[in-house]
């Protein structure tokens, strides 16, 4: 499955959940599939998606879906430990794992030799899901504990344009949506 297909399958099953989307092509792909005020597109600070998602989940009650990547999670592995300990009831951490740094030319990441689901399990995550082809969120959206969703995707990026929004506009639109 291509990553853009995975993002499409996930967003089709969401309603008004808040989405924190990882830097690079994942954000561009989400923007191309379905731009929405409840999407926060990261344009910098690789590795921070899961942390931003945790802070947002602890700060308010709406469900938060983080679309993270294997390289980004490897850059901020301590985040799994903090999420587990804080135990937010409204955080779904999705790792779109293509076993490489897709936005910089598909250089191999260590996710090809280390199973990130098993890392999350070892940290203590109780709700683990692994998808290869069809992604099913029906059960996931009803769980009120931190959830680790591991989606294996092919390497490569969709041919989608850059995001033509200013960072501040992304922020203001998103914050207005959070306030409701």
């Amino acid at each position, binding site marked *: 499955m291509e990553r853009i297909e995975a993002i499409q399958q996930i967003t089709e099953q969401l309603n008004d959940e808040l989405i*924190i989307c990882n830097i690079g092509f994942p954000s561009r792909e989400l923007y191309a599939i379905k731009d929405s005020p409840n999407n*926060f597109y*990261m*344009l*910098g*600070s690789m*590795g*921070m*998606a*899961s*942390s*931003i*998602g*945790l*802070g*947002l*989940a*602890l*700060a*308010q009650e709406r469900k938060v879906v983080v679309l993270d990547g294997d390289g980004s999670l490897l850059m*901020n592995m*301590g*985040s799994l*430990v*903090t999420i587990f*300990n*804080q135990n937010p009831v409204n955080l779904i951490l999705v790792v779109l794992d293509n076993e490489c740094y897709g936005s910089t030319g598909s250089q191999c990441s260590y996710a090809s030799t280390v199973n990130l689901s098993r890392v999350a399990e070892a940290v203590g995550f109780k709700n683990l899901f692994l998808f290869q082809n069809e992604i099913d969120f029906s059960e996931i959206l009803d769980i009120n504990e931190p959830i680790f969703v591991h989606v294996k995707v092919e390497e490569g990026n969709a041919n989608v344009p850059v995001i033509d929004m200013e*960072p*501040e506009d*992304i*922020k203001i639109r*998103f*914050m207005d949506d*959070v*306030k409701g």
Partner: protein
Amino acid sequence: MDSSQTIYQALKNAGINFVVSLPCVNLGKLMEMVDCDRDIIHVPVTREEEGFGICAGAYLGGKKTTILMQNSGLGNSVNVLASLYKLYQLPILMIISHRGTEGEFMNAQVPMGKATTGVLDALEIAYFNPKTPENALKIIPEAWTLAEMGNAPVGILLEISFW
């Protein structure tokens, strides 16, 4: 005036309700006070950079945010400050125990201690250096107002002699 109690009171006066932290010897008492406060969400983190990410999300969710850290953590956080906080224009109050300053007993703290203000200057982050608890009590709420109005991080550097 107890220095830790004063910083805690100043954070309360500023309306801070979300705090992430990594310990420093000088921050221990303050961390305990924050942790016992039911009106403040306190998240101990594994690395300062992660703490800045968490605070960014909490701010998007409507919280008034502070990080408690040693100045070494500033070095761990340069990119997140530039390409998340400066890029999106996000506020945060940084309470920084400034080691490597006068009275430091560990030589190992000196290089980052000396680099600290240069790093803040390079990032164009405003900072204050209150010398006494009375001074900090006045400056900290003003610093948060400056952060919020200016949509930018603001630092409070607390040297060894402060404690």
